[in-house]
């Protein structure tokens, strides 16, 4: 059977688009949420326990919905935002809803790793809350943030494959439609191979970058 490389290339670009854009948007949402989860908890910089509890619950609710259900459940919202409920762009909306709370939790755990002594030093110096976040908390957590965002990116690649279910396209979709449904083993192997290389490459890059930040 002939392998259509144009299809594979198109699917590859669709995957990059979906993962890239949803990573961007979900980080833009997840980063502030993650910071809020850290600074509003009990005993923290801007302690607001009721706010923390509500925020934490909302994040948990979104995290507990399986992606495939989220994908379908928010179709009306997707249509409202991108004007359509199918296609690559439409897949980005549920991907963001899926990844943003996940990233918020990852960022939260990175920030919680920061030595409390450093934060005490910040307080002793008279740093404002914003200075504490941007000049102490985030720089100290940077290496761990990079590693956790790498995990999130790879998670998004997996989720984007499922987005094929609403016609999102991408490599995962290609592997399912050609390889699984049409028994085209070659295409399936090629797409899976590309996904393996992509994941390996991202993880290696993430590790290198994190080490570079840590070791300067």
């Amino acid at each position, binding site marked *: 059977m002939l392998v259509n490389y144009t299809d594979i290339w198109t699917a590859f670009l669709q995957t990059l688009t979906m993962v890239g854009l949803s990573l961007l948007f979900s980080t833009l949402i997840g980063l502030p949420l993650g910071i809020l989860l850290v600074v509003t908890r009990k005993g923290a910089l801007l302690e607001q326990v009721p706010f923390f509890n509500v925020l934490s619950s909302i994040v948990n609710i979104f995290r507990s919905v399986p992606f495939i259900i989220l994908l379908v459940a928010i179709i009306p919202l997707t249509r409202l935002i991108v004007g359509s409920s199918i296609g690559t762009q439409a897949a980005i909306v549920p991907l963001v809803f899926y990844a943003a709370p996940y990233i918020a939790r990852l960022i939260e755990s990175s920030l919680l790793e920061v*030595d409390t*002594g*450093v934060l*005490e*030093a910040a*307080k*002793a*110096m*008279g*740093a*404002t809350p914003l*200075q504490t976040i941007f*000049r*102490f908390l985030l*720089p*100290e957590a*940077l*290496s761990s943030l990079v590693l956790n965002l790498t995990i999130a990116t790879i998670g998004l690649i997996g989720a984007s494959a499922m987005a094929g279910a609403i016609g999102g396209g991408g490599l995962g979709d290609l592997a399912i439609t050609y390889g699984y449904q049409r028994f085209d083993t070659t295409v399936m192997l090629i797409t899976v191979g590309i996904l393996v290389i992509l994941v390996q490459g991202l993880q290696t890059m993430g590790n290198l970058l994190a080490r570079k*930040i840590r070791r*300067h």
Partner: protein
Amino acid sequence: MITFKNVKKIYQTQDQSIAALDGVDLEIKKGEIFGVIGFSGAGKSSLLRCVNLLERPTSGSVTVDGQELTSLSAKQLREAKQQIGMIFQHFNLLDSNTVFANVAKPLVLTGVKKAEIHRRVHELLAFVDLADKADHYPDQLSGGQKQRVGIARALATQPSVLLCDEATSALDPQTTQHILRLLKQINEEYGITILLITHEMGVIREICDRVAVIEAGKLIESGTVFDVFSNPQTATAKNFVRSVMQDEIPASVQQLIERREANHHIYKINFLGAHTGQPLLSQVAKRFDIDLNILHGSITELQNIPFGSLLVELIGETAEISRALQYIDEAQVTVEEVLADAG
């Protein structure tokens, strides 16, 4: 310089409240090095953290340099904190920042101009003898070097007070000496008031002018280092003093005490200050018909004043010994008989 008025710090847990500070009154003078010593959990850490309000007292007032910190707004308090430097047991440096950036941090926070930061940081690094380490990262430094970075950082805003939180507890004895000398130098050259907390009496002996002993959230004893060392009042203070002053009676001497014959009496003679310079024992030997046998002793210096004790055996007639003792007493040294069960 630093005044505590009836400061209480109470931690509320589910079923009980624990008083970390239980009505502390304290007055630290400008330019002195004041040490607070206590076992862990005695409240010394809370006491130190109440000075720059890292912990807010439950009641009472804290005044630093004439400003009552407990009544300031958040913004005023941030400004006041620039007058209070702090160094920590575990240094608390930013691992992601170079030595230069760490020292520059307090200046960056207050918006000091770049050129001025550059000048000031290099001056500070030269002062702590780390001029060549500006571009290094903390994980490339030894513990002593890290603490010197911490000290440079604490001095960046030219504070009038320096708080030291067990600053040498994570360091080896030799490095501890270097850091203590540096603190003394800071105190003398810049006139910065230093408040330090420690559980090591050696630190107090080395650099402090005055000391307070804290136990269960209360200051149970305080005074000049010389007074507390030479005449500790409480059991805790005595314990701390004993930890650095070798007044343990050696086993061989102990045996001698237990075996002693009727006409042998063993006394501990405590020398304070100028008396150490007097040829007291040789005078006693000349004036009275007794023999003197020095069994054990140590004389040290506290704040440049000699201080110590000798364990002396007096051999002779009982009447003659009591006359000799009376003579020693008049020389204003304290003398006490050592008995077998006391050791």
